[in-house]
């Protein structure tokens, strides 16, 4: 672990709240890239705004690109197309990636561009103080839904599936071994790879909804009974298929077009 920190972290300790899953995700990602035979200089970690966007920036000692709220995938698209050798990893949250940035998420999935998106879903806007998110379960208490959330939440894996993503998985931070394995698969996958990582937010979500970490454990436990698992989320690899990748198609277009170029 110490070697891992020396190798991949810019500074630690991190500033995440006690009980937050972001530290586990940082740990899992370091282990995943350490186990892969890929040049660390080829990684580009793009993030938007929010707690989850702090996982790569500033903690990871790789190229990190901390952009504006919701647009991480759009920034990543430009960088990936400009340099197709980059392994572009997007760290985003449910508010960042599915709220303000939901449009970019579905369009990147539709293009099947070779990006790896880790969307950390904590069911709430944590950094701004616990407001209702597009993933907040119905009737949950947040700082903008004190009478219970009136909205229905997104099922993000279903969303990107119908948009055309070619690798989709869902894990919680309580399944680190599966998560590391899946992260490696997602990075190696050619096409749009999406992992929804369920993570507790004891400070903003747990506190308001009387959820201890123990409650989160049973909430995120795939084996717990349906009544207890009230988020009713299936875990595991949900989609894994081959489909033409966007950057490859762009290269083919260049080959056809370059035959008639004049400067």
């Amino acid at each position: 672990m110490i070697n891992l920190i020396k190798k991949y972290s810019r500074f630690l300790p991190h500033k995440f709240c006690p009980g937050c899953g972001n530290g586990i995700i940082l740990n899992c990602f370091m282990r995943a890239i350490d186990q892969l035979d890929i040049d660390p200089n080829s990684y580009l970690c793009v993030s938007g705004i929010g707690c989850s966007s702090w996982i790569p920036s500033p903690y990871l000692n790789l190229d990190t690109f901390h952009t504006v709220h919701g647009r991480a995938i759009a920034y990543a698209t430009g960088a990936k197309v400009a340099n197709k050798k980059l392994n572009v990893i997007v760290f985003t949250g449910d508010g960042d990636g599915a709220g303000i940035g939901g449009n970019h998420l579905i369009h990147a999935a539709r293009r099947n561009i070779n990006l790896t998106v880790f969307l950390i879903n904590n069911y709430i806007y944590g950094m701004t103080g616990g407001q209702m998110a597009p993933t907040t379960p119905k009737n949950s208490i947040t700082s903008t839904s004190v009478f219970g959330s009136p909205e229905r939440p997104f099922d993000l894996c279903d969303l990107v599936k119908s948009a055309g993503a070619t690798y989709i998985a869902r894990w919680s931070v309580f399944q680190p071994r599966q998560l590391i394995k899946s992260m490696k698969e997602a990075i190696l996958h050619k096409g749009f790879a999406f992992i929804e990582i369920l993570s507790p937010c004891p400070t903003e979500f747990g506190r308001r909804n009387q959820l201890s970490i123990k409650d989160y454990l049973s909430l995120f436990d795939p084996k717990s009974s349906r009544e207890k698992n009230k988020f009713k989320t299936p875990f595991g690899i949900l989609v894994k298929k081959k489909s033409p990748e966007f950057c490859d198609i762009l290269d083919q277009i260049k080959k056809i077009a370059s035959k008639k170029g004049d400067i």
Partner: protein
Amino acid sequence: MLPGKYLVLGDIACAEGAIYAGCKLFAGYPITPATEIAEYLSRRLPEVGGDFLQMEDEIASSAAIIGASWAGVKAMTATSGPGFSLMQENISYAYHTETPIVIVNVQRSGPSTGQATYPAQQEFYQSRYGAHGDYESIVLCPSSVQETFDMTIRSFNLSEQYRIPVILLMDGAIGHMREKLVIPNPKNLNIIRRVYMDDNYTENGLVLPMGKFGSGQKLLITGSAHEISGKRNYTPKVHQSTIKRICSKIQANNDIIEIESFNLDDANTIIISYGVSARPSYGAMLNLRKKGVKIGFIRLKTIWPFPDTLLRNLINNNVHSIFVVEMNNGMAVREVSRVIKNAQVFSISVLGGIIPKIKYITKKVEEIIYD
């Protein structure tokens, strides 16, 4: 297009200028009257080994070109008013992270959807103050198809030289006008190459060499307040020095500003204009000269930074009246009034998506000077 003479749209001249400037990525979203730039580049960029991206909106377009710029290519987007408004947050990010990109705004008549296919010059201020936060801008404003080509190249050059998003402020008339375009031999074009951190570079303190993703520099790029290294730092001292530096790198360099002047020597009256309205303004000046009015004409080619010093030096004490001709409700006229104190400054403003006629400008000037 090979070097030679052509009859093309202003939008095509802009797109071809980008190719000659070395642009390798364009990301955009369809919008009148800028669409031809995207259409043309979707065909032209792959021919020269570049990429064209049609993004889901203008926000994504501006985001993608910033990402591409950090990945090491020259990148551009083109839009019009509504799309330009959407881009502002990312433009602010580009100012703070000092990212060289080119944003073309082919202005149409607003507010909102306005007269979508008609020209205007209503983003005179938005192109300077549209994004949030403190920064200095470079905004160039062409008056002809040829100048659109030249200024697109200059926009790329300035963006690389000063590590700044440069805005090329066209208008629907220039974009949709067919005129002669002479493309020179690429050998005779001055194309500025990006300076990277690993190149032999003597730092002048204001413009820092740039990093590039994927080259092992372990870059830390953030829009949060940061030290030069990219490390977040919210202390007043650090952020103050960042803002001072990104502003003074533009303020300290007078070579950014270009203007064109005619018949100023004996003039006691001057017309100032820019963009497409500069064309009839020049005609009105010639018209009035024939009638014996001692009138001169100044055309602003760089509208931001505003040419304060240059105008003060050019406009001497004999000048008693200045007319600012523009296709908005009077924007540049405010800047001219701020700069020139010893002459009366009048606005000749044209609204409704039309280009002022020579006759109209002549009449307006005569109304006031013979009053």
